[in-house]
């Protein structure tokens, strides 16, 4: 039997899930079954659009069946659709119940914080995987049915790519859920949440490659927000970080590449700015 919280999460989200699944299915079905009617107009459309526009829309070739599916379903609107669904649903796992207060009663059940988080994310994640798989599943039926000349393995690969995309985006809103307002860990008690309070920006995470400033993104069990500076010392100007335009870059062994993380932490910001989309995918 599945944990009660997983079932509850699905039930609470059922209307949204049905709606999104229906929308994605309709979108896929309609576009794919228009293929044969569209063939006459395809060349016209492709010629009418300038190359830059075609590139922007991700249209390589509207004439071949694979190109048609790529242009219509897998390049722009399809991913957008499932990503919108992913971000909406992922934000509901922890951030929204925390905000509206519904989390208190769910946490009052005999579950640890970590298993609460996992059950919520697992429930939303499995539902999302299902929705993201809908285009692939439908195409598996439609493609042979209307006689499109594409190997089903290619359809499966494209579909898997869509699922992976959804996973990597769904992970960010759920992991970026702010910690409960009242649950801010105090200076002495260890971080209370099962997820790290700070994510490195993608650029910093990639460029440091886990070295240089590994201490910057230590998480979960460490006490207090970790910084590059040794505990208690104020960040002060240091020549080693002078390449960064910062009046007070943190003094530490940080490589300059990692200072974007360090700077945030030293400045007291807990989350990366909204513009930087941290990719914490399911690797």
């Amino acid at each position, binding site marked *: 039997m599945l944990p*009660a919280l997983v079932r*509850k999460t699905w*039930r609470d989200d059922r209307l949204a899930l049905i709606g999104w699944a229906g929308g994605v299915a309709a979108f896929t079905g309609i576009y794919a079954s228009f293929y044969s009617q569209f063939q006459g107009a395809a060349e016209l459309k492709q010629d009418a659009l300038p190359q830059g526009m075609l590139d922007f829309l991700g249209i390589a070739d509207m004439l071949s069946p694979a190109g048609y599916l790529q242009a219509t379903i897998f390049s722009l609107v399809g991913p957008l659709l499932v990503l919108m669904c992913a971000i909406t649903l992922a934000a509901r796992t922890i951030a929204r119940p925390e905000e509206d207060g519904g989390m*208190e009663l769910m946490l009052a059940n005999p*579950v640890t914080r970590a298993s609460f988080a996992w059950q919520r994310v697992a429930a939303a994640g499995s539902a999302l995987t299902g929705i993201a798989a809908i285009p692939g599943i439908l195409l598996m039926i439609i493609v042979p049915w209307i006689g499109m000349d594409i190997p089903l393995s290619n359809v499966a690969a494209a579909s898997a790519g869509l699922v992976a995309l959804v996973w990597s985006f769904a992970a960010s809103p759920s992991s970026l859920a702010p910690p409960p307002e009242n649950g801010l860990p105090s200076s002495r008690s260890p971080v209370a949440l099962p997820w790290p309070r700070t994510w490195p920006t993608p650029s910093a995470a990639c460029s440091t490659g886990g070295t240089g400033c590994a201490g910057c993104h230590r998480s979960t069990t460490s006490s207090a927000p970790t910084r590059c500076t040794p505990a208690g010392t104020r960040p002060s100007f240091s020549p080693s970080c002078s390449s960064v335009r910062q009046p007070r870059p943190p003094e530490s062994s940080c490589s300059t590449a990692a200072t974007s993380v360090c700077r945030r932490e030293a400045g007291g910001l807990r989350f990366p700015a909204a513009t930087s989309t941290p990719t914490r995918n399911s690797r």
Partner: protein
Amino acid sequence: MPGRKTSDDVGMTSDIALLTEDLTKFYGQRRGIEGLSLEVRAGEVVGFLGPNGAGKTTTIRLLLDFLRPTRGHSTVLGLDPRRDKAALHRQIGYLPGELVFPGRDKAEDLLRFFAAARGGVAWAQVTALAERLDLDLSRSVRTMSKGNKQKVGLVQAFMHRPAVLVLDEPTSGLDPLMQQEFLAMVRDASVAGQTVFMSSHVLAEVQQAADRVAIVRDGQLAAVERVESLGKRAVRAVEIHFHDPVDPAEFSGLPGVSDVVVSGPVLKCTIDGRIDPLIKAAARHEVVDMLSAEPDLEETFLSFYYHGEGAGDASRAGA
């Protein structure tokens, strides 16, 4: 003296349901609760009183590990709220002060979720509670009134017969009849050996059900008292309408009477302790109407503790 313990405290953990030692929580600079040391014995009903913002909800959230203390620690049933959270919450019935239910389920489905999450609850227990509180389980919780939501909250707190009930302002939103029913539920729970820790800002409801009250103000424990000793010092505001104007001097000298204000035929005063001397004095005149109200706890009762009287067994002269 804040944090005073009663003399008959027992040091055995098995006997103590809730224990806090120097429990302190600061939200940055803002104080939640400071230096709270409190013991609640198993099977006891303790009211947790204080004005808004005194730190009642903070304390309760600390006990449930929704917050982590800045300093000090607490144990519930001898367990650590943090380390043993899952095991502990099986034995705690919790009613939040701000009740928000997850989802838009019918009350019945919501309660089935709570039952399943707590490892199974006899459904007869749920229906019995719902019947007792006159609650319609077939309605969606989203569409319910505040009072009905509160009833759902009470049902989920009581349904698994927890060893400890932690209730944050349990009567808010309930009508007087249901408040009485709730207090009866608390008494039944106490008889069954369950420990009840309930916060409130209404003295009267706590007086009816609790064995002891702990009073907090400005984040600090002001007093822990047995309810019997509270009754003796219950302060009342009395207003008497006479037929003819009266002389204030007649009343101001009476034992326990203070703040005498006379405007024409209307006498207003507060009385601490026995009301008899005032009644006898008033009976010499023709009385048209008489109102006696228990004053607001926040205004009168707490100020009593803070204006030189202190806690403990000190009682006012003449009371």
